[in-house]
């Protein structure tokens, strides 16, 4: 099997497993599936190992957006491989453990689905060979961790913890995304290998520091580093298997993984040292000190995780190669002992029913095996010799001693390292001695027993790993560490010695000091530790509280303060704000743009001037009449529309003129249909109050400014010479490529067919919205009865509301009935000639719907529907499908979506005919336009057929 297949399978397998497990209702089946997937993933990871010899990098490239230089790249090197082992190996153990930990009534399908998906996302993060891809999987892990932490979503604390974790890590992820985009921009490629090769250029770039800050925000928030550490203790309300997986081995390790991944590019500068090293040191101390004062078993582990990750971060921040090696080593060690400790804590919780350190004690009498395992694991955490934690801690001390940043910093760093190490001895003692040694306490919620074998086995395997690494480091972990560190450091890999005994040297003395100090402090102060809840001195300054304050400010206080100022129930001021903002935006765009208002213009045609005098009178008349004389205003607006239609003819745009004219007709009909539902308004009934007059002056000023601005802008635009417009391309290629003479139509249905497809979809959506809105339409009471005119002309029968009375509109009705087929024929004509002469699907569609609506108006809805079956929804649907099918048809012939084909065919009788596949697309457009237009018109027309509501009902709603 080639390595591409293996890496690809490794990425897809967990997601496939997740999809399968998600809906499973059978606990046992879900467990077996999850175990199978995790074991297979582990096997695949192990199978990759032989290809990685000699520092080879496995790349699998799947083209994604080659035009943007973006490919899906799966990149497996030593570092990624080490993480793959952690992700899949600990994943497998957690899956087994969870089967026995989770309550019996949980069917586990959803749980394993989420867990496997999380595993897949982590695999995606570590194998990403492209930083955009990395950011994607990064956010995916945040999202899935949210779901996993909040798995027991009945509990408020679980929901809150999940929310905090999501906000912090996903927010950090956004910063990271911005930082990675910057990084890609600086390096000139988003490909990881290209970025890794551009290290010097990146560090010298002026944007290095902002980019570093953004990347650090992402990595530090993910790894729960100061000042973002507070989400991790909150996340302890997650089920324990989730904590064991996410908060020891995977999720929180993603941050340090990223720092390691980018270490060759970013590390080694002053900014890197202070930001990364500083955050690491702060977390190391703060986490360790806080862990000492926790009373909850899992909280101790959470704070200790913060501290250990701080140690790793600080090692990376030092910028020395030895520090990087130590960091990788400690990542592995921490993952093993912390995962086993979480599982042990879960076992204790499971058996006793409590996690409170003050209530627990002496559990070795009832669960000896678990107690032994937990004691060994906590010894590893404390850094006891012959266990893995000791080795990486020694390396940490050595690295801390070998930094040279001036005397103060050096001494301080070494001293603080010992101090933090001392704290870690104390909390390890509290965890181990407090819970398992001493006298068995009474009054536990449950009577503890040894947990089931399959719950102890994962703990046992992890503890075995701790011991093996601790006793035989060079043999067990040496080659793997070499491989992983080689992938990060390349040629610069330092010589390091993984021996247990280096002789009596400074690191050993520091270890002894920390160990002795920790033991003494624990023996002397254990009572004091147990009485407190928070850290002395610093306990009052809680990052958690700051976060909550900021969150409350942003989501509640600030919006509430702003809401009255910027929003409200009144739409009129909002419209004014929109208009003003648009005017301002246009003004800003105009400002500073060179504009020519010269008089190069062509001569004014007096006819055209006269035409627009008429147009202006119409527009201003409509303005004047719109309040009290709606019909007059509608006619005047129509007049202005006709004038602009004539202008289109005048200015060489016959297509526009035809469409405008037809749309004008339909718009007028639509509004006419709606007019009868509006309340009567009589001039002179409400005299203008002074504020109203003032408001009109103000709006007049706004309108004047907008009008003047538009006129100026239009004038400048018309005088601006158009150079190199895309239009030349269309004019040149319309006939040869589109097979049509009418360039406008060819653009619509061929060159820019995709835009048109979007357009007709919008049209269809609008028509459906209109239809849906009108289905629930309730007219106001006073407009329910037949209008006065109809009553006077005897149009209605006594009982109904149908305008189908015998003599009503007889002559116009007859004329319309005779004309309707002619209009439809004209529409067909417009459609067929559209590709070569003015016309086309839009115009033809509107023409046909005009015929239909004229029939409705003249004969009434019942008359038409008794004789003609119109199914507008079907027209819309078929039209859309036809347009889409034409586009897809091109795909079937191996051309891009919507490309058209044209040919001239000779038919008997008809002669030579130009046929283009775009004609079919235009037919789809035609169908959608006919359907949408008639859907709206018919829905409006149908309102008159409704039975009036019962008066009591109406009275209620109106009151």
């Amino acid at each position, binding site marked *: 099997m080639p390595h591409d297949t293996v890496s690809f399978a490794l990425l897809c397998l967990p997601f496939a497993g997740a999809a399968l497990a998600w809906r499973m209702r059978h606990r046992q089946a879900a467990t077996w599936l999850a175990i199978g997937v995790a074991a297979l993933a582990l096997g695949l990871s192990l199978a990759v190992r032989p290809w990685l010899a000699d520092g080879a990098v496995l790349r699998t490239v799947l083209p994604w957006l080659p035009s943007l230089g973006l490919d899906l790249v799966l990149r497996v090197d030593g570092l990624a491989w080490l993480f793959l082992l952690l992700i899949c190996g600990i994943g497998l153990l957690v899956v087994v453990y969870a089967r026995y930990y989770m309550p019996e009534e949980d069917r586990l399908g959803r749980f394993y689905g989420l867990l496997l998906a999380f595993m897949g996302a982590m695999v995606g993060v570590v194998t990403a060979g492209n930083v955009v891809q990395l950011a994607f999987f990064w956010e995916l892990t945040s999202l899935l961790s949210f779901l996993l932490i909040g798995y027991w979503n009945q509990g408020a604390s679980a929901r809150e913890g999940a929310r905090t974790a999501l906000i912090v890590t996903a927010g950090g992820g956004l910063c990271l995304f911005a930082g990675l985009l910057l990084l890609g921009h600086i390096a000139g490629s988003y490909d990881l290998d290209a970025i890794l090769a551009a290290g010097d250029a990146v560090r010298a770039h002026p944007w290095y520091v902002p980019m570093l800050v953004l990347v650090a925000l992402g990595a530090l928030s993910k790894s729960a580093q100061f000042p973002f550490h507070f989400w991790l203790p909150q996340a302890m309300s997650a089920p324990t298997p989730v904590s064991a997986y996410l908060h020891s081995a995977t999720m929180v390790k993603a941050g340090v993984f990223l720092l390691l991944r980018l270490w060759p590019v970013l590390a080694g500068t002053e900014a890197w040292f202070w930001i990364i090293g500083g955050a690491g040191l702060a977390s190391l101390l703060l986490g360790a000190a806080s862990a000492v004062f926790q009373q909850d078993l899992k909280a101790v582990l959470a704070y200790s995780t913060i501290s250990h990750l701080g140690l790793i971060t600080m090692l990376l921040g030092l910028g020395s190669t030895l520090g990087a090696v130590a960091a990788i080593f400690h990542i592995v060690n921490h993952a093993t002992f912390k995962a086993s400790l979480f599982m042990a804590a879960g076992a204790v919780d499971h058996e006793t029913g409590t996690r409170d350190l003050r209530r627990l004690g002496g559990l070795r009498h009832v669960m000896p095996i678990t107690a032994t395992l937990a004691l060994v694991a906590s010894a590893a955490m404390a850094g006891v010799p012959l266990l893995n934690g000791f080795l990486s801690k020694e390396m940490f001390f050595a690295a801390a001693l070998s930094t040279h940043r001036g005397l103060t910093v050096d001494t301080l760093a070494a001293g603080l390292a010992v101090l933090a190490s001392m704290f870690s001895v104390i909390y390890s003692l509290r965890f181990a001695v407090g819970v398992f040694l001493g006298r068995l306490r009474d009054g536990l919620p449950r009577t503890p027993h040894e947990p089931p074998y399959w719950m102890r086995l994962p703990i046992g395997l992890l503890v075995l790993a701790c011991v093996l690494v601790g006793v035989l480091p060079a043999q067990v972990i040496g080659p793997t560490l070499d491989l992983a560190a080689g992938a990060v450091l390349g040629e610069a890999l330092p010589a390091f010695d993984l021996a247990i005994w280096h002789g009596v040297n400074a690191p050993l003395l520091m270890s002894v000091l920390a160990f002795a100090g920790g033991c003494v402090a624990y023996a002397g102060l254990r009572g004091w530790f147990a009485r407190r809840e928070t850290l002395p001195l610093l306990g009052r300054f809680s990052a958690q509280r700051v976060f909550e304050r900021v969150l409350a400010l942003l989501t509640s206080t600030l919006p509430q303060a702003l809401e009255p100022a910027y929003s409200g129930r*009144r*739409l009129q001021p909002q*419209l004014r704000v929109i*208009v003003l903002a648009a005017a301002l935006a246009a003004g800003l765009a105009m400002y500073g743009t060179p504009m020519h208002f010269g008089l190069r*213009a062509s001569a*004014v045609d007096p006819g*055209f001037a006269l035409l*627009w005098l008429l147009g*202006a009178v119409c527009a201003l008349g*409509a*303005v004047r009449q*719109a*309040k009290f004389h709606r019909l007059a205003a509608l006619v005047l*607006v129509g007049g*202005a529309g006709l004038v*602009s239609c004539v202008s289109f003819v005048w*200015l*060489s*745009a*016959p297509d*526009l003129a035809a*469409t405008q004219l037809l*749309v004008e007709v339909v*718009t007028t009909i*639509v509004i006419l249909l*709606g007019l009868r*539902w*509006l*309340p009567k308004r009589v001039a002179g009934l409400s005299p203008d109050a002074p*504020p109203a007059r003032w408001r009109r002056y103000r*709006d007049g000023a*706004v*309108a*004047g400014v907008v*009008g003047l601005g*538009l*006129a100026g*802008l*239009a*004038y400048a635009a*018309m*005088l601006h010479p*158009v150079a190199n417009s895309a*239009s030349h391309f*269309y*004019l*040149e290629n319309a006939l040869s490529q589109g097979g049509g*003479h*009418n*360039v*406008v139509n060819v653009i*619509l249905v061929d060159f820019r067919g995709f835009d048109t497809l979007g357009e007709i979809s*919008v049209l269809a959506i609008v028509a459906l919205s209109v239809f849906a809105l*009108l289905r629930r339409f309730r*007219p*106001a009471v006073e407009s329910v009865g037949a209008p006065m005119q109809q009553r006077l002309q005897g149009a209605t029968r006594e009982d109904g509301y149908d305008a189908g009375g015998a003599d009503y509109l007889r002559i116009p009705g007859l004329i319309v009935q005779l004309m309707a087929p002619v209009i439809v024929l004209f529409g067909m004509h417009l459609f067929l000639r559209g590709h070569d002469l*003015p016309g086309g699907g*839009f115009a033809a569609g*509107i023409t046909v719907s005009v015929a239909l609506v004229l029939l409705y108006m003249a004969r009434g809805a019942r008359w038409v529907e008794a004789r003609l079956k119109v199914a507008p929804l079907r027209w819309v649907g078929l039209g859309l499908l036809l347009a889409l099918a034409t586009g897809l048809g091109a795909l079937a012939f191996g051309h891009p979506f919507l490309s058209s084909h044209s040919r001239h065919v000779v038919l008997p009788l008809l002669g030579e005919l130009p046929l283009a596949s775009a004609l079919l697309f235009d037919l789809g457009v035609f169908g959608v336009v006919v359907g949408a*237009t008639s859907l709206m018109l018919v829905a409006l027309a149908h309102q008159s057929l409704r039975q009036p509501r019962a008066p009591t009902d109406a009275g209620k709603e109106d009151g």
Partner: protein
Amino acid sequence: MELVLALAIGVLGGSGVWLLLRPRTFQVVMGLTLLSYAVNLFIFCVGGLRLGADPVLREGAGLIEYADPLPQALVLTAIVIGFATTALFLVVLLASRGFTGSDHVDGKDGAP
């Protein structure tokens, strides 16, 4: 010609905006219609004004003898979409009138 059309666009746009700011829903719909005329003409005129030069290809004519087809194609779809939005607004207007019993933009006759 340019000056006339620019003034025309200004008048249509100004009238449209004024109506847009009025309190009655019908006035707003009319204003939107006028404003869309103005905007359509504006987009159209950006390609420059040509007389007697339809963008329909003829035998033996040079490219320079045609009007710019691109703004025309843009405006053509804009006209149709403009119609659709007008219809949608009209229906929203009717629904709002039915629900609130008033044809004021804000749903109640607070101000004239």
